[in-house]
């Protein structure tokens, strides 16, 4: 996963990265923001080329369970 600043995350939320695909920044267990390799490598939207070019991969630790009943997470 590629790590984002909070400002970068809010820049990308809801924006199209390639036809019919929308960025979905997510927070990990520490509250840090990330997007996926598929989004970085699949981006065809020139508006975000510079932002994505500066990103680096970092360890993503999934957030804890929200306690859904029945689900083993």
């Amino acid at each position, binding site marked *: *996963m590629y790590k984002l600043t909070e400002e970068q995350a809010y820049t990308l939320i809801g924006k199209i990265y*390639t*036809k*019919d*695909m*929308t*960025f*979905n*920044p*997510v927070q990990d267990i520490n509250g840090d923001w*990330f*997007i*996926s*390799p*598929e*989004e970085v490598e*699949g981006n065809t939207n020139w508006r975000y080329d510079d932002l994505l070019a500066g990103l680096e991969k970092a360890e*993503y630790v*999934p957030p804890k369970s*929200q*306690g*859904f*009943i*029945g*689900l*083993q*997470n």
Partner: protein
Amino acid sequence: MLNLGLGIKGKKLGGGIPRDPDTTAFMNAVNIPDNGTVYYSGTAQEITGRGFWDAIDGLITDIKDAGLWSDLIAFYPFIGGTASTHKWNLKDPRDLNAAFRIDWFGGLTHNRFGVTGNATNGYGNTHITPSTDINGSNSFGFKVINNVSSKAILGSILNFASGEYMYVYARSGTNLIAAQNEIINTGYLVVTNNSTNGNYRFTSASNNHKAYKDNSLLANRTNAAAFANIPIYIFALNTDNVGAADYSNHNGVCFDFYTKSLTNSEVADINTAINTFETALNR
């Protein structure tokens, strides 16, 4: 399909034989012409545009022959290999939320094998809301072709502690876990499932819920029905409409939803239709 008499049916051939109008509407939306253009060249899934039209025409005919077209509200056959071709609803191929056209988010892989989640942030919003679109007798299903233990293949859940849950974990460890539009704190399904691959189908009539894998009945339960008023996501859960969670990395080749509790024979008919369709696409 062509009815050749004596109960024999043959596939329609392209180039001159009229297509079902629903085939034409869907394939025009997908933007694949009915001609000899080759897709996925050099792969085991190589197919022409005409081949796609034949496969979709056969699928629609089989659903209609089973008497289920009018009960169908959405079928996502995932053909064409891109987010733009995979978003369309076979039943209503308009580019509208109201037509249950999928919106895609995050890191999903779209290719000749359908759609694969990434287990971290990829999902699709079907815009199908249980409380308004499948409230009452209903069925839903999907086909998975990768054998992985993962999180939610689909879901819409409201009120975490005691509310309206609809979700499926096709295989979490060695269990299939599901809730079929029901009150979660009084019941849900857990049944052994050691291989993810297959056709999954869930039917509900009033408070009776059945689950099938391929044509085998896995469970027949009773629990109070309840329908969330937030849309169903695929490859993740929609949780209280505040975001997606429990992303999966399943490879789905199709999803379908009905406003009817399918009978055992209708489950078999739909599974046969889907398997015939997927065989035509060699996936």
